[in-house]
């Protein structure tokens, strides 16, 4: 039983088998569906509250939750990439092209307006709030525990398999691209160097890498059959979800209720 020793089982890797996963942090130990409810409620509240105050506070709330869960660093890094890569681009596009009365300055054909900036800010913030909720969710909850939670609520294993396999396929594509790069180097094709050298090596492998992945689906189907995936017997699970304690359920319900009540109140007043 060496592999299942208690020391190993308490490792916060999520890869424990003998007992229930604990990350040693109450937020990360929450039931995946409760986390979903809480984050969804906060997002809804952020969207319903007068803009842009509500949206900004939503984003800040996500950051706060991440810090409290001990994943502040990794969430902030990921989120910063999204803000720059997605948020900023959306903002610039709106700000530059939306027509309005208050032109800020003119630069050739571009005439950003005050209205455009405002609309751009709001739109970018809406997207960022939604992205933030999703990003935070998958930083907090491993994909496999989320899928297990759905399966235990009655989602068919075929559906969870497809979702999990799709996510794995993204990792696999990255890996097989690297492998093919190695194979190319071994055939005297330069893959190291400037952008042009890399592109010349990379472009020809794109199609084959995808085709190989597709080709594997048939073999995958047979492999799944060999593992009795379609046995017709209700599946059991080696992974166990931590049963949500009463206070966690109460807290989740309270948060959801509070957010919805606030939204409702806001709607009634206006």
């Amino acid at each position, binding site marked *: 039983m060496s592999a299942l020793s208690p020391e190993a089982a308490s490792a916060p890797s999520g890869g424990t088998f003998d007992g229930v996963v604990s990350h040693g942090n109450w937020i990360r130990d929450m039931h995946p569906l409760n986390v979903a409810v809480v984050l969804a409620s906060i997002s809804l509240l952020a969207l319903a509250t007068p803009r842009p105050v509500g949206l900004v506070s939503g984003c800040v709330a996500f950051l706060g939750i991440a810090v409290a869960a001990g994943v502040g660093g990794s969430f902030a890094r990921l989120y910063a990439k999204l803000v720059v890569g997605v948020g900023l681009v959306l903002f610039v596009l709106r700000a530059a092209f939306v027509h309005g009365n208050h032109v800020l300055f003119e630069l050739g054909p571009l005439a950003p307006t005050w209205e455009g900036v405002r609309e751009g800010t709001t739109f970018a913030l809406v997207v960022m709030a939604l992205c933030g909720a999703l990003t935070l969710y998958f930083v907090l909850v491993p994909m496999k525990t989320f899928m297990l939670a759905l399966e235990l609520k009655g989602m068919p294993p075929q559906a969870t398999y497809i979702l999990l396999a799709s996510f794995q396929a993204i990792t696999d594509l990255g890996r097989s691209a690297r492998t093919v790069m190695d194979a190319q180097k071994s055939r005297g094709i330069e893959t190291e160097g400037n952008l042009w050298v890399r592109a010349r090596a990379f472009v020809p492998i794109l199609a084959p890498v995808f085709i190989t992945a597709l080709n594997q689906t048939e073999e995958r189907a047979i*492999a799944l059959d060999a593992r009795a995936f379609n046995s017709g017997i209700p599946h059991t699970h*080696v992974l166990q979800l931590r049963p949500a304690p009463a206070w966690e359920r109460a807290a989740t319900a309270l948060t959801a209720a509070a957010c919805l009540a606030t939204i409702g109140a806001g709607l009634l007043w206006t």
Partner: protein
Amino acid sequence: MDLATLRDVTFTYAYAEMPALEGVTLQLQRGQLYGVVGINGSGKSTLCSLLRGLIPHFHQGTLEGTVEILGKDLGEWDAAELSRTIGCVFDNPFTQISGIKDTVFEEIAFGLENLGVSRSDMLDRVTSVSEQMGITALLRKNPNELSGGQRQKVAFASIIAMDSEVLVIDEPTSQLDPQSSHAVFEIIADLKARGKSIVLVEHKIDLMAQFADRLVVMRSGEVVAEGPTAQVLASPAMDAADVPRPEVTDLAFALEAVGKGLGCVPVTRREAEAAIATRMRGTQIHADRVA
């Protein structure tokens, strides 16, 4: 009831010009370890697919003749029931990983989850199988990042953990070092001792000679010999099918060719050593008498 009865079976894959199996008549008994040998393309893997019901359920083509698995016509089997009854290890270790598990432990447990095995049984079985295979050090690794040999061990462990009554195993040791290959054969022998029926395709003929009860020799889609291992290994069917014999059997034939025949055809080293030792003692005694 037999494990499988094939009567005049011919199978041609869709879009193929030549049949992959042609006029195969074969009776496989339960509780035996059958070795299947033949060159690549001789029909070994197709025979495995047929016994496992992948033909006609997965692979398209034309199937003629009758196939009975455990007394029931192949066509009447429910695919799900067949997949529970007959475990199958394929030859390519790179495509047998489920692709959705991020530890070897969960990968091996995957088949058990699908069979609805209780969690405590699952933990026991995965642990004992991985100890048997000597892969406990891999249990926390990501199965998608293993080497070929490691994947092959994990794929094999995943199937034997499912503990099905019948096992069809296609080249389980192609990526393994000699020691691991031997370990795999020991496990297969142990499964047989526990009453499992096993059909095993493998090129390593020395191991086959040591472990298989009976051999099936294939050539161009036909079965050219079937019988007790020692008898088949000594038969000319081996040459006809271009399959090597165990080294010690070749040694016995070589001795016979130079007029020093052993009077028997050994197929394992132990048998050969015993026969040669007897000969050497005889010569020693003879020499002593002369002296």
